[in-house]
């Protein structure tokens, strides 16, 4: 018995027969990409990783003998400690966290809404709308930021429109106050409880973590939503067009209205697209740089400072390359963690039993005893099939 068991069919050598040499060819064909990715991606990343744990000062090679290993000193400088470096990092994290918290859901919702809109067969001039909605995504962020600086100027068009409807618009680019704090101040709360103001995380008090995005950051948040929703609309649109009409028709036959069809039928089928959009959104939102670099450079009051810009600032402007690289890797870790978390939330789950029961006709399991059947079916009227069987 054992002899037959240890004679597997795949004992044939892979190096023989018609498929011999395929491996070598495979390697040759993939080699260019491996080299390009290695030289331009993997090695720079490894170099940056080394810089983040070294005391390289920005002069000459980071691999020269004069550069020493300092362990996690650079990471510690921006995460522990009570100096400016930690506080700046904390402030940048606070700003970016609010940015992510607001931009990711809003841009996803907006792009889905736009996609459903331009997917509709009844809409006239669909092509025009698709182009119009996608247009902001094609335009360079820098160009849009310049436009935004103009639109949201203290005496710019946005405030002019607000003034026309009787609202005294804020001085967008110069207002460092957080919008949540402002909302609280409107109802008379200007100071947080001691437990929030006395304790801090990354050098920023909890009360300030909860300040919300500043007025200036809100303008940038609007811009983030404006520029990216077009791209994501395209992803949703592709997914929507992949959904065959027969399922919709089936749902219609079952009597589902448009609202139910969207939530119960369309949306579940968009899950892969949703996953892509959320992942790309999360990654993009944690890497906000262009707008800050060309527009505000952290002003007003450091409320538009982001970790990506801080990393650039620490390296190129302050010559603290180790800290800059450390910030970049912390950012990397955050993005990875968020992506994993999001994957976990959106994982394929078996339909819960309670939910499944809603869709199932009551059936009698083969192994059921009369007692359990009776218990299950007690409240419901007798099944016609069953009654027929009995008779």
């Amino acid at each position: 018995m054992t002899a037959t068991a240890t004679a597997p069919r795949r004992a044939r050598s892979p190096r023989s027969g018609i498929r011999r040499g395929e491996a070598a060819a495979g390697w040759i064909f993939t080699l260019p990409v491996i080299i390009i990715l290695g030289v331009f991606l993997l090695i720079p990343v490894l170099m940056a990783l080394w810089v983040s744990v070294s005391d390289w000062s920005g002069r000459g090679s980071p691999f020269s003998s004069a550069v020493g290993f300092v362990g996690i000193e650079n990471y510690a400088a921006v995460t522990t400690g009570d100096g400016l470096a930690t506080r700046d990092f904390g402030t940048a994290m606070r700003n970016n966290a609010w940015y992510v918290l607001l931009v990711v859901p809003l841009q996803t919702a907006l792009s889905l809404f736009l996609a459903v809109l331009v997917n509709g067969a009844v809409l006239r001039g669909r092509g025009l709308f698709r182009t119009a909605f996608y247009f902001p995504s094609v335009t360079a962020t820098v160009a849009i930021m310049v436009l935004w600086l103009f639109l949201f100027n203290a005496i710019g068009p946005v405030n002019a429109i607000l003034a026309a409807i009787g609202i005294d618009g804020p001085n967008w680019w110069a207002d460092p106050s957080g919008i949540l704090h402002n909302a609280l101040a409107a109802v008379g709360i200007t100071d947080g409880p001691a437990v929030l103001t006395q304790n801090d995380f990354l050098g920023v008090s909890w009360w300030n973590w909860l300040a919300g995005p500043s007025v200036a950051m809100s303008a940038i948040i609007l811009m983030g939503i404006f520029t990216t929703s077009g791209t994501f609309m395209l992803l949703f649109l592709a997914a929507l067009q992949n959904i065959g009409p027969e399922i919709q028709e089936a749902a219609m036959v079952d009597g589902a209205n448009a609202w139910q069809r969207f939530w119960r039928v369309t949306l579940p089928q968009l899950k892969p697209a949703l996953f892509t959009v959320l992942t790309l959104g999360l990654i993009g939102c944690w890497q906000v740089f262009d707008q800050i670099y060309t527009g505000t450079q952290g002003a007003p009051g450091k409320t538009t400072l982001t970790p990506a810009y801080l990393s650039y600032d620490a390296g190129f402007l302050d010559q603290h390359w180790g800290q800059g690289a450390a910030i970049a890797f912390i950012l990397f870790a955050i993005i990875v963690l968020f992506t994993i978390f999001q994957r976990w939330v959106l994982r394929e789950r078996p339909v819960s039993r309670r939910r499944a029961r809603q869709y199932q006709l009551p059936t009698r399991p083969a192994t059921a005893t009369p007692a359990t059947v009776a218990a299950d079916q007690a409240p419901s009227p007798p099944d016609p099939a069953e009654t027929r069987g009995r008779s």
Partner: protein
Amino acid sequence: MTRHTTRGLLGAGALLITGALALTSCGSGFDDGGGGGGGDAGSGELTSSDDALTVLIGTSGDAETTAVEDAVAAWSEEAGVEATVQVANDLPQQLSQGFAAGDPPDLFYLATEALAGYAGNGSLVAYGDQLENKDDFYPSLVENFTFEDEFYCAPKDFSTLALVINKGLWDAAGLTDADIPTTWEQLATVAQTLTKDGVVGLGFGPEYQRVGAFMAQAGGGLVEDGEAIASSQENVDALTYVQGNMTAGTFAYSSDVGAGWGGEAFGKQLTAMTIEGNWITGAMTNDFPDVQYVVAELPEGPAGKGTLQYTNCWGMAADSPNQQAALDLVQYLTSTEQQLAFSEAFGVMPSIESAAEQWTSDNPDLAAFLAGADYAQGIPTYDGTADVITDFNAQLEGLKTGDPQEILDSVQSNLEAIVG
């Protein structure tokens, strides 16, 4: 399973080998530069070779570019050394790249706040003491470019802050030359007189680089004799004075009136007076030629006159193979004659005292700027100063509703971390 592992190892090996090859080819480039320069910076002797020079500048416009190009070309012909001028679009970034790659420009514009970072990591040659015209530079400028007791580089020119007054609005408000303020009280009074019809009396940028002038007039500042003095009573008085006038609506930040900087607010006649440096003359000529203005010295505070000064120097790379020639070029560019030519071309003030008289007689309307040189404060040159000032600026934006003492206390603790 084993087969997959072998393949994986093979793949990783291939990658590592490629990587190692790539690194060695880059590495040799790094080492050439780094090794050669390191020794020179330490010994204090300048390198000499036949290599051509590269000059990297961050320019304010075509006028400056042309002036520098012409001057360098003239020197190049005279000295017989090839030299080219490159215009940077992002000077700090391009400099950093040059240093990291071991191939920096030989000479470059260097801002005061960048000095400590580059000097600290050995990127710069401290050639200041070898300049023939060393004693001609204003002492306060020399101090600006002195890091750890070494005079690093020659100040190329400088600017100070002064009070710029809109002539039209001034006359319309019934004010005369006799009303030009010389004290804080008078400044507050005229600002109040000028504040009307949507125009704010005095507007300036929301930053230490403007508000700091009041601190100087009150007798304060950021660092004195190697001690952080940010939280001193003088500074608190200065900020309280500014805050009081802001609350009264007679002073305002340029951002509060919707302008990018003090000069823009002034040019658009949103403010009747501003505190700016002599670069404002170019902006007025180009963008607001119809606005007439006069320039006066900033009024005295409790401790007398005070203003801030801004300057750049000609930084020299420690990795430059031809520092002798570079030094010669710097001397040429900072000579009396050449500095006056630059001044005429793009409105800066010469960094040397021997050119002062000529400059004043050439620019009688701007004399107040040069007068400031005698009592101007520079920006401290400790490593990390730029961050502290950025943080200070962030807090100054909220000065109107903030607590001056609290703001200055945090600046003090930030400064103490880098001074000493």
